[in-house]
C-alpha cells in the first residue's frame, strides 16, 4: 500500500488539471448555441424524377419482398397502405431497403443519391397510398416555444426531453440527433412502425414546423449551466457527484489528513511531547 504523502505542490498539480479539464469540457461547446439553420430539404419534384431509373431501382432493391405491384409478399409488408411520407422516411434514413429479410429496421447509410430517391418514390407512387404525403417543412416559420410544448406533450414520452431516444418494449425509440427536418416531419405524419402517426388534426402545419425546429434546437440546446452531461438527466448527475465530487474530495481529505499518524510511531510509547493536554 502506498502512503498518501502528497506534497503541497503535487496536490495543486492534481487539482489544476482537473479544473482545467472541467473547464475545457464545459466550454467546448459555445454556451450560446448557434440557432439551428437547417436547410429545408427540397421536396421531390415529381416532374424531374426519371421514371425509368425509379422502376429499375425498385426492381433491383424492393421487388423481392414487396412485390412488383407493392402488394407485399410473405417476406415483406404491402405498401398500398403506406403513404409517401413513410416511404420517404424509410428510404432516406436507410431503414429500407434491408439486405436480408428480418434485418432490423434501423438507421443506416443511405445507398441512394437524392435524385434516385425521388425517382424511386415517384415510381412507387403508382401503388402507394395517397396519404400521408411527404410534408413540406418550413423550419424558419416554426416557433421554438410552441415546438417545445408539443414536443414535451407528444414526443418526450418516447424520445426523452433531450431527444436522445428511449427504451421501449423490445426495441428503442431512436435518438433524434441525425434526422433531417423532412424525416422528422415525415415520421410524425406517417408513424413508422412502432410510432403513432399524427395527422393534421392533432399536430397542425404550424405546430409541425415548430416541433421540427425544437428537435433541431435540442441538438445544441443552450447549456447555460456548463457541460450538459450528455443530457441524460439525474442519472448522469449522480454519477458525476460520486465520481468527480466524492472522488476529488476524498483525494483532498487524503492530502489534508493522516499527517502525524504515520510519521512518529516508530517508538511504541506515545510521544507526549509538544504539550499534550493531559487533564
Amino acid at each position, binding site marked *: *500500500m502506498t502512503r498518501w504523502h502528497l506534497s503541497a505542490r503535487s496536490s495543486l498539480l492534481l487539482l489544476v488539471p482537473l*479544473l482545467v479539464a472541467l473547464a475545457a*469540457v*464545459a466550454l467546448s461547446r459555445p454556451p450560446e448555441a448557434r440557432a439551428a439553420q437547417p436547410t429545408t430539404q427540397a421536396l421531390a419534384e415529381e416532374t424531374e424524377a426519371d421514371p425509368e431509373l425509379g422502376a429499375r431501382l425498385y426492381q433491383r432493391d424492393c421487388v423481392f419482398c414487396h412485390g412488383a405491384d407493392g402488394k407485399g409478399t410473405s417476406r415483406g409488408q404491402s405498401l398500398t397502405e403506406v403513404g409517401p411520407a413513410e416511404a420517404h422516411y424509410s428510404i432516406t434514413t436507410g431503414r429500407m431497403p434491408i439486405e436480408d429479410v428480418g434485418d432490423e429496421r434501423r438507421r443506416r447509410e443511405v445507398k441512394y443519391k437524392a435524385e434516385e430517391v425521388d425517382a424511386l418514390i415517384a415510381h412507387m407512387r403508382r401503388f402507394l397510398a395517397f396519404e400521408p404525403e411527404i410534408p413540406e417543412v418550413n423550419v424558419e416559420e416554426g416557433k*421554438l*416555444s410552441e415546438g*417545445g*410544448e408539443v414536443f*414535451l406533450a407528444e414526443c*418526450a*414520452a418516447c424520445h*426523452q*426531453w*433531450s431527444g*436522445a*431516444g*428511449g*427504451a*421501449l418494449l*423490445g*426495441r*428503442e*425509440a431512436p435518438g433524434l440527433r441525425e434526422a433531417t427536418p423532412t424525416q422528422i416531419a415525415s415520421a410524425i405524419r406517417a408513424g413508422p412502425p412502432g410510432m403513432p402517426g399524427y395527422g393534421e388534426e392533432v399536430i397542425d402545419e404550424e405546430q409541425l414546423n415548430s416541433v421540427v425546429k*425544437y428537435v433541431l434546437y435540442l441538438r445544441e*440546446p*443552450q447549456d*447555460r*449551466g*456548463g*457541460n450538459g452531461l450528455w443530457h*441524460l*438527466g*439525474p*442519472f448522469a*448527475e*449522480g454519477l*458525476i*457527484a*460520486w465520481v*468527480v*465530487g*466524492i472522488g*476529488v*474530495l*476524498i483525494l*483532498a*481529505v*487524503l492530502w*489534508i*489528513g*493522516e499527517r*502525524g*499518524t504515520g510519521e512518529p*510511531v*516508530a517508538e*511504541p*510509547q*506515545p510521544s507526549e511531547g509538544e504539550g499534550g*493536554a493531559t*487533564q
Partner: protein
Amino acid sequence: MPASDVKTERRPATDEMKGRRVGRWSDDRLGVSRFARTALNKVFPDHWSFMLGELAMYCFIVLVVTGIFLTFFFDASTGEVVYNGKYGPLRGVEMSEAYRSVIELSWDVRAGLVMRQIHHWAALLFVAALITHMCRVFFTGAFRKPRELNWMIGVTLLVLAIANGFTGYSLPDDLLSGTGLHIMYAIVLSIPVLGEWLASLIFGGEFPAHDIIGRLYVIHILLVPAAIAMLLGAHLAILWRQKHTQFPGPGRTERNVVGSHLWPTYTARSMALFCLLLAALSALGGLAQINPVWLYGPFDPASVSTAAQPDWYLGWIEGALRVFPAWEVRAFGKTIANPFFPSVLMPGITFALLYMWPFIEARVTRDRDDHNLLDRPRYRPVRTAIGTGVLTFYVVLTLAGAQDVFSQQMDLSIVAVVRGLQILLVVLPLGVGLITYKVCKDLAGAEHLLEEQEEAREPFIAIGKIEATDGNGHKEREKTATH
C-alpha cells in the same frame, strides 16, 4: 480568524494586545477561559477518514447559505403565469409561478444559476458524504457502545437529508419533478389503511393538488433543515462528550485519544477542507450543468418524459419500484397496492435495520464493552461481508432505477435487463459478501503470520489486540520483519 501567536512577528504587540483585550472582556462577563482552553486543546485524530463526516457537515452549511439566496427569488405558487424572460424557447409559455421563478433565477438573475447549481450539487454531495461517513463508521465498528445513540442520530440525519433532497428537487414544478411527485402520491396512497387519508392530507386533495408546492417549500426550507441543524448539534455535542474513536496503533489505547490539537492545527485543516469543498462545489456549479429545468419543461400532469429518474439518492427506491414483480394483495375487499412493498416496506425495513444494527450486533457478539479503539474491517469478516453485500444490493437497486437508460445505451431489450437485474439483486450481494469474507480472512491471516514471525524476533509491547496502525503500520512492519 484572530491573529494567532504563531505567525505574528511583524506587529506582535498590537495584535496580541487587541486579542488579549477581547479575551479579557468576554472572560470578565462569561468566565469562559477555562472551557475555551480545554476546547482549544481538544485532540482530534489525524486519520483522513475522520474528515468524511465533516464533509457532510460543510455540505449542509453550503446548502443553508446558498439556499437562503435562492429563497429570495423562488415563488412557491402554482398560479398560472407566462414567462417573458431571456430564455427564448419558453417565452410566451404558460407555466406555474414556481417554475417561472426558477427559470428567471437561472436565466435572468445574475449569478442565480451558479447559486442554484451549487445548491443542487451540494445536495447530491451531502447525501453522498453522509453515506461515505456512515460506511466508515460501520466498517470500523465506531457505532459500538457507547456510541449507539450517535449512530441513530446519524441514521436520522440520513433520512432527513434524503427527505430534504426530494422536497427540494420537487420545488421547481418542472416535468421531471412533477412526475416524481405523482409517483410519491401513489406511494403514499398505497399505505394500507391510512394511505388515502395521508395522501389527501399531505397533498391537500387528489393529485395534483395546488397546495403541494407551498407545503413542500415550508418543509424544505424550515421544517427539515431545522431538524437537521438540531440533530447535527446533538451529534456534535455527543461526539464532543464521548471524544473520537481512533484506529489502534502504537500509543493508542482505549483510554486516550491521539492526534492533533483542535487549535490551531486541526482548525486550519478543517477550514482548509471547507474551502476545498466549496471550491469543488463551485467548479461543479459553474461547469457541470445540473437539473436544466428549462429543458424538462413546465409540469403538466398529462405529459411525461422517458428516462425519468429521481436524484441519485432516491434511485434505490425508484429501482425497487421498477424491478418489483407485478404483485398486489387483494383480500376481504381491501387492497395492498404494489408500490407499498418496494417503496414503503423495503425502505422501512432498511432504516429499521440501520437503526437497530448496533444492538443487533451487540446481541449476536455478546459484546457489551465500551469501545474507543476501532476495528480494522479485515478483523471483523462477518460484519464487513454483511456490509459489502448489503451495499451491493442497494447499488444494484440504484442502477435498476436507470434501467431504461442502460437498455437504450447498451442496446439491450428492457425485458432482458429487468430479468437480469432481478437475478443480480439476489446473486450479486451474496457473491460480494462471500468474496469479502474470504478476502478479510486471507488478509487477516497473512498479517497474523507476519506478526508471529516478528514476535519471534523481537519483543514488542502489545497494545490492544491489534498492533498495526493502519496501512502504514503494516508497511513498516514488513520492513522490520526483513531486517
